[in-house]
């Protein structure tokens, strides 16, 4: 028993409630948000240290022993993801006051922000399939609140579609849980993992597995279920886009990783083979979307889809290299996607347009911004020694070992095109004549660049310090591949 495991849920929740009371006082809200997010970050650092030295922390709420009560499982994977989440959140908290939210801040922006973190953290640490649904709903509710914030015509229209598609997949989630409950008689993930070994009819389990995959794929925006993502992610403010791009789809792919390494592991030749092809198609279609547009926000939004594809590829290969590549890429992508969304937010702010054709010559005015984008493009595409490279290397190694040469080629080509799609922003937006934007007033980027640069350092460190990080990721992958460890630590047998 240790209440430490619940802190990543409770701290943001308490912060959110406190901030509702201070809603009308914007200055106090900003300061409080920054203080609270830093506290959460420090606590999650401590938790990671604790988990890596003492092992998984299990909390049986209300002293109801597993599998009867609500279980929170803070294992190495969950704690690392929570640390990354809090890192992104802290940076967004320091970026938000300068992001031009203006009036939107007093529409309960900060409380919704913390409710979102609550939901994301909860989804990472819950040990219960139904609670996963509940935390999904918490984070979705907060995201509905954020996405409509101060909305005009287009924003309302796109949020409506976002809400509808998520509502539909949530109801399918409930149905899938009902099916699973009928077959195994429990919703505790560890106990499900134990009981599926004894189920005689594997067919129905595979069906439920595919249904759950459909649900998570919708949330994670995989091919062919990604059509809702690009447009709804570009309508809100850049801070909100950054949070969404960094966290929401990642919760979906994390759930796939959890469920398909713990529960549905008895039909690998069907489910995981399917993953590999879905991953390949996601890469291809996602990158085609990114290349097809001149709207810089859309380019970044489309780039989420191939990234999710890469992570799914690792889960599909189901080798130790593949899984560790997935985990590495998951953490890397959470950081770099928020960096890119925030950077693009700055670019749109200084250029006054999101259309690439109307930009040019920004490097003369904003050199730091330009080079930050340049580095992030390299990080995202996976040029050594940055973090994207290590993740992709492991993923492709896993795919190569399992004999999927075609996917390796697709993955490499996609990486090149990803680099091209971001470089396009750099070339058209930053190069060129000084006069291309007309008489551009130099706007102040004070307070916008520093948080992004801070976050980007972590991304670079993750790549340069791979020597130090990799053994930990590798041990997590070994742990993920052996569900018995998880089951034993929860059910204490």
């Amino acid at each position, binding site marked *: 028993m240790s209440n430490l495991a619940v802190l990543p849920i409770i701290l943001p*929740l308490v912060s959110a409630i406190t901030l509702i009371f201070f809603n009308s006082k914007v200055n106090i809200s900003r300061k409080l948000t920054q203080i609270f997010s830093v506290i959460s970050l420090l606590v999650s650092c401590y938790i990671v240290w604790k988990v890596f030295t003492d092992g998984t922390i299990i909390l049986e709420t209300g*002293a109801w022993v597993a599998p009867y009560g609500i279980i929170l499982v803070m294992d190495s994977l969950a704690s690392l993801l929570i640390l990354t989440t809090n890192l992104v959140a802290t940076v967004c908290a320091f970026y938000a006051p300068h992001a031009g939210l203006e009036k939107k801040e007093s529409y309960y922006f900060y409380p919704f922000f913390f409710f979102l973190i609550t939901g994301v953290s909860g989804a990472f640490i819950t040990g219960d399939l139904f609670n996963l649904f509940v935390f999904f709903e918490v984070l979705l509710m907060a995201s509905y609140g954020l996405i409509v914030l101060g909305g005009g015509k287009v924003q309302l229209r796109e949020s409506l579609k976002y809400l509808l598609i998520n509502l539909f997949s949530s109801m399918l989630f409930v149905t899938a849980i009902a099916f699973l409950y009928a077959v195994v008689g429990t919703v505790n993930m560890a106990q499900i993992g134990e009981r599926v070994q004894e189920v005689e009819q594997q067919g129905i389990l595979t069906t439920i597995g595919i249904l759950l995959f459909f649900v998570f794929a919708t949330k994670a925006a995989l091919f062919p279920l990604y059509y809702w993502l690009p447009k709804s992610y570009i309508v809100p403010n850049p801070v909100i886009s950054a949070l969404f791009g960094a966290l929401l789809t990642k919760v979906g792919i994390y759930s796939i990783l959890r469920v398909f390494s713990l529960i549905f592991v008895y039909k690998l030749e069907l489910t995981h083979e399917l993953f590999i092809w879905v991953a390949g198609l996601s890469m291809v279609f996602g990158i085609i979307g990114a290349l097809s547009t001149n709207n810089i926000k859309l380019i970044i939004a489309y780039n989420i889809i191939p990234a999710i594809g890469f992570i799914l590829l690792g889960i599909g290969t189901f080798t130790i290299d593949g899984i560790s590549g997935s985990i590495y890429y998951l953490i890397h992508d959470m950081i770099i996607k928020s960096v890119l969304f925030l950077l693009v937010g700055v670019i749109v702010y200084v250029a006054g347009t999101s259309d690439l054709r109307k930009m040019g010559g920004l490097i003369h005015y904003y050199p730091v911004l330009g080079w930050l984008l340049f580095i992030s493009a390299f990080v995202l595409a996976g040029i050594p020694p940055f973090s994207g490279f290590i993740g992709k290397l492991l993923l492709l190694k896993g795919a190569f070992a399992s004999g999927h040469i075609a996917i390796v080629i697709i993955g490499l080509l996609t990486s090149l095109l990803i680099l091209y799609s971001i470089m396009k922003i750099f070339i058209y937006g930053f190069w060129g004549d000084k006069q291309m934007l007309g008489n551009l007033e130099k706007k102040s980027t004070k307070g916008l660049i520093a948080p992004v640069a801070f976050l980007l350092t972590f991304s670079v460190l993750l790549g340069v310090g791979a020597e130090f990080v990799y053994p930990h990721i590798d041990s997590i992958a070994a742990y993920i591949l052996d569900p018995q460890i998880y089951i034993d630590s929860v059910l204490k047998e």
Partner: protein
Amino acid sequence: MYKPNDLVLRTTTSLIAFILLGFAIYLLLAGHNSPGGGFVGGLLTSGAILLMYMAYGMEVVKKIIPINFTLLIPIGLSFAVGTGLGSFIFNVPFLSQTFGYFHLPIFGEIELATAMIFDIGVYFTVVGVMMTIILTIANDQ
């Protein structure tokens, strides 16, 4: 000017609203170990307030119940989260509950549980959310 004939609604409301409110409080207090609870209680209460709105109109009810319903949401949430935070002080698993028997004047021997504080929190939150949603749509005309 058109004046609605709502004599029947008003007369029955003055009776029904109090029955509803009383039953809501009964459900709230019974909730921790028999059917009922904060959610149903909150729904019933907001139903009663809504009935009063329909019968007497916005201005009158605002004068009778001068509460900012939006503010009820964070208050209720802090109650609910507060019971959880107690577990940090007493060093027991999160959301643990306990109960004891107390002797109160008038009521006599009575069982009080910490789960009830949580229920009260839920009650306030539900009333707050319900009334906020309904008033948002109703005001916008």
